[in-house]
């Protein structure tokens, strides 16, 4: 009997970690500052950090590019960690479940689509970056042309192998990647320091410091505007982490392990440091792509070994993204009823097609993903203001899963105010800054685009709740409704209880 209870308890813990069941304090897996920080760092330091870093010198001065990128990441990650990470930390719920308090149980389809586009879209991009990186290494070693079809079989093989490994690891759940990232993260940082050292050794500190890209390639010659562009790169990158932070902080035990590890791990180490090395390489070595310059500078053996490590670290990134997407996609009823392993496989299946289309993926999808951060500026502003200023850090967790009579029902399950503000904030962002053409207008030069839109959307939501939802007694915003209900399966719940279901 005791064994049966223990086995059931273990299966609940497994369901909580791989599903939408709230993860309670005793079941959480990140017990130290370092373990969460290294997961954040490993996740952030994928090959895309090199890709983004390669763009930083184009703001007119690589030093301004790096400074602005750090500024944007620090401010952006602080806001996003509060908006997405803190509510999920308290209640152990997925970020999409906590977002029901402001979007409604049907309105959450808006942030859910953004989240799935981000996590699954970037997973396939990382798949393509890794497989093409492997081909670059092979081409560098053999002296052949990487653009021809000579290495296409290798690209496809690596991509398919990657999908299989990611599936196997993601099936094991977050406990495995918590342990692995404790090694991968520090190792990746050591490798990046070594790459930085190789650049210094080959070009000298002074040359690296003063070299810039040619003037005709710069996006602007106005230093203030260049700084704003770099800040925006960092901040819009941070905005995409709204879809990630809640899914990770629900696994963290201590509140002192939320903010610092997020900002240092994601922002400073994983993104800013790696991107800075890529920025320097883009200028002095002629390409941001480490699979090209590392082998030419460090030689075939050291260069290939280093790049193999860097590309292998992409696996950890893909595993975390597929895990988070797997938890969130269970908001769609049909996906919550299938086995975890099958669910992960279904999400990875399109990757088989993309394994044969990696070049197309990198050219077509990358420009679309430039708009990625835009999707979350409104969502971040709304969820931040909702949790801290309107609900005073109090949600009713049972009502996040209510089948009927939810406090967060709004209009038929949709809070059209939050949906409208999200749409308008996206439009406002694009008025200030177009991430594809780099056209800017208005106050962008001093404020960027994400920050004003996060503030304005939060402010607009605050005013709309006070002016519309409170008088209509919708959304459970009244202080008298700030209570905790009991959950039940009964279809006729007693007073103070609510019927819940996944």
């Amino acid at each position, binding site marked *: 009997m005791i064994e049966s*209870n*223990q086995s*059931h*308890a273990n299966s*609940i*813990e497994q*369901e*909580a970690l791989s599903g939408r*069941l*709230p993860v*309670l*304090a*005793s*079941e959480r897996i990140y017990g130290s500052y370092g373990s969460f920080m290294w997961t954040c760092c490993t996740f952030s330091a994928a090959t895309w950090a090199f890709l983004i870093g390669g763009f930083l010198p184009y703001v007119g001065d690589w030093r*301004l590019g790096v*400074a*602005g990128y*750090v*500024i*944007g990441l*620090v*401010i952006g*990650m*602080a*806001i996003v*960690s*509060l908006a997405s990470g*803190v509510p999920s*930390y*308290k*209640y*152990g719920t997925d970020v999409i479940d906590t977002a029901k308090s402001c979007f409604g149980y049907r309105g959450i389809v808006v942030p859910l689509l953004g989240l799935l586009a981000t996590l699954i879209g970037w997973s396939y991009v990382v798949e393509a970056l890794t497989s093409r990186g492997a081909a670059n290494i092979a081409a560098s070693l053999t002296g052949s042309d990487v653009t021809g079809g000579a290495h296409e079989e290798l690209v496809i093989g690596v991509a398919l192998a990657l999908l299989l490994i990611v599936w196997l690891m993601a099936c094991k759940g977050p406990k495995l990647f918590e342990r692995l990232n404790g090694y991968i993260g520090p190792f990746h940082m050591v490798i990046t320091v070594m790459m930085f050292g190789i650049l210094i050794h080959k070009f000298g500190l002074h040359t690296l410091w003063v070299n810039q890209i040619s003037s005709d390639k710069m996006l602007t010659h106005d*230093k*203030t505007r260049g*700084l704003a562009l770099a*800040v925006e790169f960092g901040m819009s990158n941070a905005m995409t982490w709204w879809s990630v932070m809640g899914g990770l902080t629900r696994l963290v*035990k*201590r*509140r*002192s392990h*939320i*903010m*610092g590890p997020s*900002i240092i791990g994601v922002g400073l180490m994983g993104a800013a440091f790696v991107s800075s090395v890529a920025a320097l390489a883009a200028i002095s070595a002629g390409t941001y792509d480490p699979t090209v310059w590392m082998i030419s500078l460090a030689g075939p053996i050291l260069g290939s070994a280093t790049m193999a490590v860097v590309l292998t670290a992409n696996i950890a990134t893909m595993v975390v993204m597929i895990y988070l997407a797997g938890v969130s996609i269970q908001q769609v009823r049909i996906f*919550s*009823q299938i086995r975890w392993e099958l669910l992960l496989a279904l999400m990875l299946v399109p990757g088989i097609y993309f394994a044969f289309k990696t070049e197309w993926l990198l050219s077509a999808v990358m420009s679309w993903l430039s708009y990625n951060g835009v999707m979350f500026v409104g969502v971040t502003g709304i969820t931040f203001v909702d949790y*801290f200023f309107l609900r005073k*850090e109090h949600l009713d*967790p*049972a009502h996040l*899963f209510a089948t009927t009579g939810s406090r967060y029902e709004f209009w038929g399950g949709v809070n059209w105010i939050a949906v409208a503000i999200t749409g308008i904030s996206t439009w406002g962002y694009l008025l200030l800054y177009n991430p594809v053409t780099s056209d800017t207008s208005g106050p962008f030069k*001093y404020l960027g685009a994400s920050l004003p839109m996060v503030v304005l959307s939060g402010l607009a939501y605050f005013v709309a709740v006070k002016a519309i939802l409170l008088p209509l007694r919708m959304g459970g915003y009244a202080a008298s409704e700030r209570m*905790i209900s*009991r*959950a*039940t*399966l009964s279809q006729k719940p007693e007073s103070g209880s609510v019927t*819940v*279901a*996944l």
Partner: protein
Amino acid sequence: MATKGAEVTPDMIGHELQLNQDLVNQLNEMVQGEHANSECWASSRPMLVEGLLWSAFGAILWVVTIYIVS
């Protein structure tokens, strides 16, 4: 463990009903058990303050950089 109050067994009911029963147990345990006495349930103010300090650090860095380049 959070599910000690569950009186249903996997043999007796379907997977979906079992999951929903587990959800009920987790939610009720969250507000009255060990979780409610843990740090998770405590005030988020320290995190808010830390977030504001990081933002202030970023903002100062931004203003100083603008001052240097202009």
